[in-house]
């Protein structure tokens, strides 16, 4: 797991707003990850958390 993936998993595990997105939109093999969360909005470089929590 890359460093950024690890951070996304840790952030999601600690996040009260995590909500698993549709299976078709999940891109991480770790189910509970910001990368699979309905509240992430993809950008060209990364993603934004629409619940206003930041992941660097």
């Amino acid at each position, binding site marked *: 797991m890359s460093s950024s993936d690890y951070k996304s998993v840790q952030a999601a595990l600690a996040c009260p707003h995590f909500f698993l997105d549709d299976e*078709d939109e999940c*891109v*991480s*093999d770790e189910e509970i990850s910001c990368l699979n969360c*309905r509240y992430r*909005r*993809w950008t060209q470089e990364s993603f934004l958390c*629409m619940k206003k929590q930041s992941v660097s």
Partner: protein
Amino acid sequence: MNILVCIDDTDNIESRGTGELASLLAQALEKNGWGKTEPVTRHQLFVHPDIAYTSHNSAMCFAADIVPGHLASFTGFAKEFLARESAEGSDPGLCIVTIDALAGRDDLIAFGRRAKQQVLTKQEAYGLAQRLGIHLSEHGGTGLGIIGALAGSGLRMTGSDGRFRGKFYVDTATGIVDVAELKRQTGVAVVKSIGGPVLHEAEKVQLGDKVKAVLLEGRSTLLVTPNTMDAARAPWQTCTKQQLKVY
């Protein structure tokens, strides 16, 4: 009569996704006896600050063989369906391409490919749809979803873009199946390694958490990679979500 149906921008952050609406629309087409549908594919479009996407900017498309005479009924149903079922604040668009009557196939494909790399406008989308005789309609909000709906149709038409919606559940006691059995249970046309050969029927594949098909060369394709865990029992393994996200 072969058609493509594509929808985009029907959801908001709290609602059910566009993929689910596409599947419901396909089910309604069959339930009403208007024709037979093929599985829904997801097509990734350009992610850019100037585009008002919800979270990932993808369009959902399915092909159908529609009974002649029922196209108008289906089109009317689809328009009402999108207007009724799309989420508050969304900008839904509907595209229906009658493939047999399409003159500018290459132009539609080019539009789809551009939509993966550029910000396009409603004016461009309507102009192309009108020129090619494609149904394109908006059903709420700004109607910007017509751009993705037209683009998604073009990308499906390439035959090599997108992932099929949903994943397969394969019945196996060991987690390992041969290609023939994998094709029988999933209905995929091809099992192929990424960037490599098409697998033979007897070759063994170890199944991962996600068994999911992509659209390649016009066929539903299950991609595999060399098995790094248990190559002695199965030389191949199914792809991870991470590996499939580029499709």
